[in-house]
């Protein structure tokens, strides 16, 4: 078990700055999620921790060992699960899981024990004699996890391990993964572009964009207190509404942001609540079972065409006819303000 320290880490591919000055400390036993869209540098960062990519500059410490430079992956005490699982197609499940143990010259008998123990843990004992191609996606993913586990790594590195599973399986796999990590308490770095995975799995989330860290925080902090408009619109589905409300009590040119689930008909709030009301011209209502998404625009905003979304839970049965203007409101405590130039959060 180990913590990870990353200091001003950079990776340049020619002109492209894939990772552009990242500082990060990952606590011992923490489940840290690197969240970003493709090209944000999250995978490159993970590969540098693994030792598959050499940093252009900066430092990486795993435990008390400095590993940027010439420390090969096998000497870093890491294990990695790849997006494609990267199982060896010519080896049985048993041989796949045994491979890292063979590579570190563990005695035969011990290998046998260890593989059976790990397979038991992931309930894949039945498949030990099969080849990867004979397994389903979920089973392959568990084999890959097993192969990573038997090395007793100090750090788990996971590169989008759920991306190749179908949606239904992904939920249970996510739950399994989280329980497994809680149980073995090994520091884990998990890369994903899926914010639902990030929110659900991470002790903390690192939001990355174009090689830089935009925000580090617990899922709650990242969701409720985004540091800038990028994080505000990247995390959350549908994204945070942003508009220039032209509010006289605010400094000129301030973006007001609020989550769609806070934007509700005026009548559902109690009279004591401190509200900011809007005239909401409803264009379209989308019925999604548990929620209704209401699309429309707000007359007060600087750009009246900008689409604003309200997310009404099914508990609000109020009829919202399309093509009409309604009185909607947001509690003032749910409002967030941003500078339109820099995108940074503005405290008011």
């Amino acid at each position, binding site marked *: 078990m180990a913590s990870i320290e990353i200091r001003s880490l950079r990776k340049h591919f020619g002109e492209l700055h894939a990772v552009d000055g990242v500082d990060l400390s990952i606590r011992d036993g923490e489940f840290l999620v690197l969240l970003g869209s493709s090209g944000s540098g999250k995978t490159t960062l993970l590969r540098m921790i*693994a*030792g*598959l990519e050499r940093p252009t500059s900066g430092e990486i410490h795993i435990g008390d060992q400095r590993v940027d430079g010439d420390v*090969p*992956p*096998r000497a870093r005490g*890491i*294990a*990695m699960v*790849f*997006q*494609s699982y*990267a*199982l*060896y*197609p*010519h080896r*049985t499940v048993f041989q796949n899981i045994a*491979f*890292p143990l*063979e*590579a*570190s010259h563990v005695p035969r008998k011990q290998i046998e024990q260890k593989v059976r123990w790990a397979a038991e843990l992931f309930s894949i004992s039945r498949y030990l*004699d*099969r*080849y*990867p*191609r004979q397994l389903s996606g979920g089973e392959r993913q568990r084999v890959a996890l097993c*192969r990573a586990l038997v*090395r007793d790594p100090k750090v788990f590195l996971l590169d989008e391990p759920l991306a190749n599973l179908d949606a239904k399986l992904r939920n249970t796999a996510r739950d399994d993964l989280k329980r497994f990590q809680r149980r073995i308490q090994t520091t884990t770095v998990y890369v994903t572009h899926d914010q639902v995975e990030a929110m659900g799995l991470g002790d903390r989330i690192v939001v990355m964009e174009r090689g830089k860290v935009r925000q580090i925080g617990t899922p709650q902090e990242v969701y409720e207190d985004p540091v800038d408009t990028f994080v505000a619109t990247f995390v959350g589905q549908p994204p945070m509404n942003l508009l220039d409300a032209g509010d006289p009590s605010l400094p000129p040119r301030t973006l007001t942001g609020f989550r769609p689930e806070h934007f509700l008909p005026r009548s559902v709030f109690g009279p004591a609540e401190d509200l900011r009301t809007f005239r909401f011209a409803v264009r379209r209502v989308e019925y999604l079972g548990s929620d209704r998404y209401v699309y429309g625009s707000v007359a007060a905003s600087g750009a009246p065409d900008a689409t604003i979304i309200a997310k009404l839970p099914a508990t609000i049965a109020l009829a919202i006819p399309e093509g009409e203007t309604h009185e909607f409101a947001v509690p003032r405590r749910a409002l967030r303000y941003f500078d339109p130039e820099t995108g940074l959060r503005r405290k008011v």
Partner: protein
Amino acid sequence: MTLPLRPRRALADREDVLGAAMLGPALAYVILLVGVPFVFAILLGFSNATAGSLSFGWAGFRNYAAILADPIFLRALRNSAVVTVGSQLLVVILATAAAQVFRATFRGKRVARFVLLLPWAVPVSLAAIAWTWIFDSTFSVINWTLKAAGLLHGWLYWLGDPTLALLAIIIVQAWRIFPFATVIVLAGLSSIPQEIVEAAIVDGAGFWRRLFRVELPLLLPVVAVAVLFGVVYTATDLGVVYILTGGGPANTTHVLPTLAFQRGILGADLGQGAAIAVFLLPFLIVVAIGMLRLAHRTEVGGSR
């Protein structure tokens, strides 16, 4: 406006007719230039035909009995096997090593790749003549180089000593086939997913373990194809041995094709020549089937 519709099926619509029409020329080529000579060769093997006469008498298995009792033939048979196996072994090692080199990026890679492919593009006869100079009893660059490096104290008569001559033939055959094999192995290497190689690195496998436990097993089907080609090319080659040693010294380095040529064409005994030439066929077929099955089995990941 309506598009003009052709009411009847044109030739281009009739895939059955079109297929036969397009296959025809290729089929005619194979039958006339491969099939007929092949059948003719088998028939000749059972005849007492000679060059310069049109008589064609049935000889039964007499030709086969004669060659099987002939030490020169048995030696040629052994040589064929030794040369084929030896050269292909060398090819597999060289091609795998060369493919590893060419997988890396380095300056002058394109030039190096061009040079690599040259042996393949050079006509066999021309290359074999060049090699006779390299193995020349007086001017052999190999000998002079070894001498200059202080590694050789006597003198090697490459084409004058039966063992060395066979070794020389193996070297030239390997040299001829290995560029082709390298290209095939290189293609095979690039078909191994990068993530699998990286997984092996992270799993702690060093270069050799990665090579022998991950890359080579995955390459096996591709290498098998390369070797199959190599076996066929080498086992049926006449030019290299004919030019390099002419079967000498004292008929010790004959392989089946050169012996068949000597007996059948130069010695005018068409029947025996054909019998020698056909002799290797069953073995080649067995080798081919074996390797294709091996390739298939590895491809689908074991036969469970």
